């Protein structure tokens, strides 16, 4: 890792980290990104790990979507992320593209990033002067932009608390095809039950309904401490809609259409998250 950081010093402003490169290579070909030094980090052992320490799951920057999708640890502790990672691009892309890259690229509808937001994940960012941890919600600086300085910093991993037995999660995605299609909408939920019926806490992440993946805070508040019921989920879904601001897309649905669909997806994601707990 030290060698990677030294490259930033050796090529000031000119070095870029490449992991899977499935976004970066295209950006370089189109001229959107220009750099004279590419630093490939995928061979670094410490970045290839999916591991659990102190109730936290850590995914290194070189781990691909396919690896996360297949990981038994992730299936058991963060089903929402396993599901999301199985939907990105195509198998060929998932075999190369990294989960951390999905976050770093800063796109508002990035499936893995949306799932990570529902898991309350934070990113570890390293530079020559040290490391810092940034919650995903504070990670974004606008459409396609993040608070990472790509010519000086590297996101080394993402980390989130593993879900326990009374906790569940789910990912719901709506797209024109099952493969090679960006989502028209996606919703990720993780929640914790107190006993059989009371919601201890819940996180709802939804996208693309703004310049970055966003939490449905007031819907979450409505649910917290309440007993689960179909009616409650309907209400919460409508509440989530009030917080969302989807755009018109020529390819992926009008704002009006997305607003019609969003509450349905939120409700389904909540139901599936609860159902996933009962599977234990």
């Amino acid at each position, binding site marked *: 890792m030290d060698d990677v950081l030294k490259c930033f010093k050796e090529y000031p402003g000119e070095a870029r980290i*490449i992991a899977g*490169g*499935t976004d970066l*290579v*295209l950006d*370089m*070909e189109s001229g959107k990104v220009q750099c004279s030094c*590419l630093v*490939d980090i*995928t061979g670094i052992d410490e970045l290839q790990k999916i591991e659990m320490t102190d109730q936290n799951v850590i995914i290194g920057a070189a781990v691909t979507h*396919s690896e996360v999708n297949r990981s038994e640890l992730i299936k058991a502790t963060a089903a929402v992320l396993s599901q999301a990672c199985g939907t990105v*691009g*195509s*198998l*060929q*892309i998932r*075999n*190369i593209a990294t989960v951390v890259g999905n976050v770093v690229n800063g796109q508002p509808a990035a499936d893995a990033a949306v799932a990570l937001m529902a898991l309350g994940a934070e990113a570890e960012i390293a530079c020559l002067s040290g490391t810092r941890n940034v919650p995903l919600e504070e990670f974004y600086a606008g459409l396609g932009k993040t608070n990472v300085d790509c010519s000086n910093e590297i996101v080394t991993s993402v980390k989130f608390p593993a879900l326990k037995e009374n906790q569940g999660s789910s990912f719901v995605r709506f797209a024109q095809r*099952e*493969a*090679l299609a960006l989502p028209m909408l996606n919703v990720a939920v993780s929640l914790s039950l107190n006993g059989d019926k009371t919601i201890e806490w819940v996180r709802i992440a939804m996208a693309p309904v703004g310049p970055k993946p966003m939490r449905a805070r007031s819907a979450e508040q409505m649910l917290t401490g309440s007993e689960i019921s179909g009616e409650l989920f309907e209400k919460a879904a409508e509440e989530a809609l009030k917080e969302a601001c989807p755009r018109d897309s020529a390819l992926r649905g009008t704002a009006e259409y997305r607003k019609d669909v969003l509450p349905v997806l939120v409700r389904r994601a909540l139901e599936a998250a609860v159902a996933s707990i009962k599977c234990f």
Partner: protein
Amino acid sequence: MILEFRLNGEEVEILVSPDEILLDVLRDRFNFTGTKKGCGKGECGACTVIINGNAVNSCMLPAMKAMGKDVQTIEGIGTPENLHPLQQTFIEEGAIQCGFCTPGMIMSSKALLDNNQSPTREEIKEAISGNICRCTGYVKIEQAVLSAANRMKAQKSVGEGE
């Protein structure tokens, strides 16, 4: 920079520039033109090759990423005299029309069958979901992969029986 890797079972070495893309190196430098360039951005799968057992798009991969890896292209699979079961069943089932997507389809299917001897139709669909065919409509391709899987299993059990 000197890139060393294993290409269709043979150790190779070639001088590449760091911004060269693997697909271009395969096609223009090794003259392995079986791997096709379709969209050039990972959306069609025509450029699919197998690296260390995984199907990947070679059109978005810097060639240097192949360093030390095992790369298989369509040229490494079967010969005109001795076709791979997938190649044989693609022909028999009529899973080819214009043929442009076929090398990619075969590579994706081979990556699947190398790891899974008895795939379901759903698993086959997932394996080729990153490969677009504009002629056949996929049904015959799925059937060909299924037939190839059965044939490979049968061959294997005959082999084990001896």
